């Protein structure tokens, strides 16, 4: 079946299978910054923004979100023009394997959009739905904090 989605502010007409998750649709269409970590809504590696709210794309059927606006990591910043969150995570040493990073960046961007100066507790809460096995979260929290100070 065909479906229309707005991905990173561009209208896209995509061919999908019924029963396909948004994670599968995005990855199949080249948005490979969206990652599979668990498929059960427990890790946040597949996080995207839907109408600016973080959602686990593995838990969403693509067919059910026709017409919605999706932001993936590819729509946040580029190597030449990274978002302050991306830059500050790099500087803080918050990126080890980086598999969790795209999802965390999106959650952090959503947090800072609605609350530009969060406390440590608010940052922890905002990224609590993400698992990161490499960093122990310490430097991720630091990086997001540093980004908030730049905004």
């Amino acid at each position, binding site marked *: 079946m065909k479906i229309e989605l707005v991905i990173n502010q561009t209208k896209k007409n995509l061919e999908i299978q019924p029963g396909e998750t948004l994670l599968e649709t995005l990855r199949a269409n080249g948005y490979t910054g969206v990652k599979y970590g668990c498929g059960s809504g427990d890790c946040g590696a597949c996080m995207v923004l839907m109408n600016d709210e973080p959602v686990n794309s593995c838990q969403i059927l693509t067919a059910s979100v026709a017409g919605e606006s999706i932001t993936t990591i590819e729509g946040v*910043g580029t190597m030449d023009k990274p978002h302050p969150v991306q830059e500050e995570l790099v500087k803080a040493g918050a990126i080890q394997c980086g598999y969790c990073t795209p999802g965390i960046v999106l959650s952090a961007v959503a947090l800072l959009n609605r609350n530009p100066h969060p406390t440590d507790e608010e940052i922890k809460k905002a990224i609590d739905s993400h698992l990161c*096995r*490499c960093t122990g979260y310490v430097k991720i929290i630091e990086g997001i904090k540093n980004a908030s100070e730049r905004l």
Partner: protein
Amino acid sequence: MLPKGCNMESKKPTTDLKTVGFSVNKIDALSLSTGRAQFTDDFSAPNTAHIKLLYSPHAHAKIKSLDTSEALKIPGVIDIIHHGNVPAILHTTAGQGYPEPSPYDTLMFDSTMRFVGDRVAAVLAETPEIAEAAVSKIKVEYEILPALLDFEKATDDDAPKIHPEKGKGYLIGAPYFPEKNIAAKILIDVGNLEQGLKESDFTFTETFYSHYGSHSALEPHAAFSYLDERNRLIIVSTTQVPFHTRRICSHLLQIPIRQIRVIKPRIGGGFGAKQEVFIDYIAGMFTLRTGRPAKLVLTREEVFVSSRTRHPMRVTVQAGVQKDGTIHAIALNALMNTGAYGAHALTVLSNAGSKVLPLINKAPHQRFNGTTVYTNLPVAGAYRGYGATQGYFPLGQMMDIIARKLGIDVLDLYRKNAIRNGETSPIFEKLGEGKEGVEQIIESCGLDECIDRGAREIGWSGKRNKKIRNGAKVRGVGMACMMQGSSIPRVDMGAAYMKMNEDGSFNLQIGATDIGTGSDTILGQIAAETLCVGIDDILVTSSDTDFTPFDVGAYASSTTYLSGEAVRKCAEKIRLQILGVAAEMSRMPVESLTMKEKMVFYKGGKLSFEEICHYAMYTANQFQIQASESHFTTASPPPFAAHFAEVEIDIETGDIRVVKYVAAADCGQPINPKLVEGQIEGAVVNGISWTLTEEFLFNEKGKLTNPNFGRYKLYSAADLPDIKTIVVPTWEPTGPYGAKSVAEIGINGPAPAIANAIFDAIGVRLHSLPFTAEKVFQALKESAR
């Protein structure tokens, strides 16, 4: 005599470092944070077919019949492989150096199923969905066999036998008794334990249990294979060991090594899980059989059920101690569960002794007595800490027990008995990894400083034995000391190749395997330091078996220390070549030249690296400035650490919370301090999580009942205690720019430190992991009785 310049003195402590010792940004971090970096599943090729596996639902069974005819009829199914149509080649999935010190007891597909999750067959189909549908149509008839699910009963006479045929055993000829379910056996004696215990004022015996654990690297295992234009098999793999993967695939697929190229792209964490080679050859087999690109990506559930875990271990510690706190005799008696197959069965066991006993090096009487047994449970493998974690859990608690009995501060007990600079341990020589070890004298040790600074940071003297109470909540502090190693001496080898480009940049090619650790960056920093350039001038390519030299891979805390020294030596050769060309250009003696900031200075002038490289390439006596180097070691200098935990326990519910955690570590000269801290923090949080919330739950048939992150609870950000990392710099003369390892040591602390803190709070000694609220509550109830 060598010319002077920046950091010629790599073998002596120096304050004049330009890149080493600085937290430069990880070179792949920006591409990772923007989603540009490619992981295995991000690779694709036209016409890629997809693989799904069928797993045994039984812990122990024989396949009586296997019928794929219905499955093959499904449109889109391309091929199915199983024990009936692939060669039966015994091997080990442990990605270790050759010959591997693990028993050859595994087949690609077997007709005997030895755990719930053992693989029965694999389907190749046009889509993952079709493959999945076909898997459910394969008909298998099993003869169910009695299962061995209690590893403490494994050597009973009437226990079911998991590998009754001897198979090939160990290529290295290590003791192996599968007829008794024994996968490995070690007995090392120093002095005379019985006599030592007799001579001691006090003796202690306690038994502790470490449990299963999932590495839970966020990226699941994946492999993608295809044939290139010359029909060579290319395997893109989530591997920590690309060269071992190539070798093992060559063996299993029965094609020469030259026909295989293994590429390691970005890897989403490993922690030992990806030191196992168990899916790459399945993808490769399908590609060889069908010519199709083939992709296998495990689901999270498959990772839990069918990949690898931490080896559970029971350890009985015996100690003999004099009144003044001198430890006179110490023994670790270990029983380790390797699950259905013996991956790392010998070496994880040996490390529970070889990385642990040397900490208490002065005891004249020591023993390590270990046995590894098979069971019908998930297969264990390499996991960060690698046996040392399971050894420090008992040792760290025993130290606390001894100190309390003697009425001395446990910090003083460590200060009195722990190994120091200039000292050795008889264990170093007697016990290595799967064979005898290598004698070594400690040349760098910051343990005292780790203890002092950690104690200050946690507020030890104000909190220890104080049982500070707030309503139903009571606090306590505990600590533990530990060491690890840096690479496997006389076993591991890493190599590097470098060449110079006209703009004064350098390509650095290394077999070393960055799995998220930052080794590409650290090795780049070492090269940059040696060549007086910035990190941006080092172009790092790693882990491609066609284009980079050999390296054993990412394990045994080896990369910084071992591959780093290969890189330093290689860069040093390049440096001498540059100076040689500069001498020719300037007509000045080499000894009079100085290298600094991408320039060579001589009396009266200077030459830029650009000019030097252009001269070498285009002007006279032309040659490519290039070099290669290899490194192996005869030592494995341990990093040291002291960890401190403060816990708060609700005595009405058993709820336990880590309030503060302090990890002080000596890893020699940190090459990149932020990455060092990151290694420690990641290991500590993994360790706390394993200690408190992570648990494999099995039903009575041996089936894992919580194979998902919903019910296998990893620590997340909101669970975090206040974590303080203290890096205590020392200088290791045998390491590159004074560096030792740091990757694994941090995971050894949380279990004993938290256990000791629990005792400090509530006076209850917990002997078995994990420390769930129910367990603490039960223990409180029992102690009240």
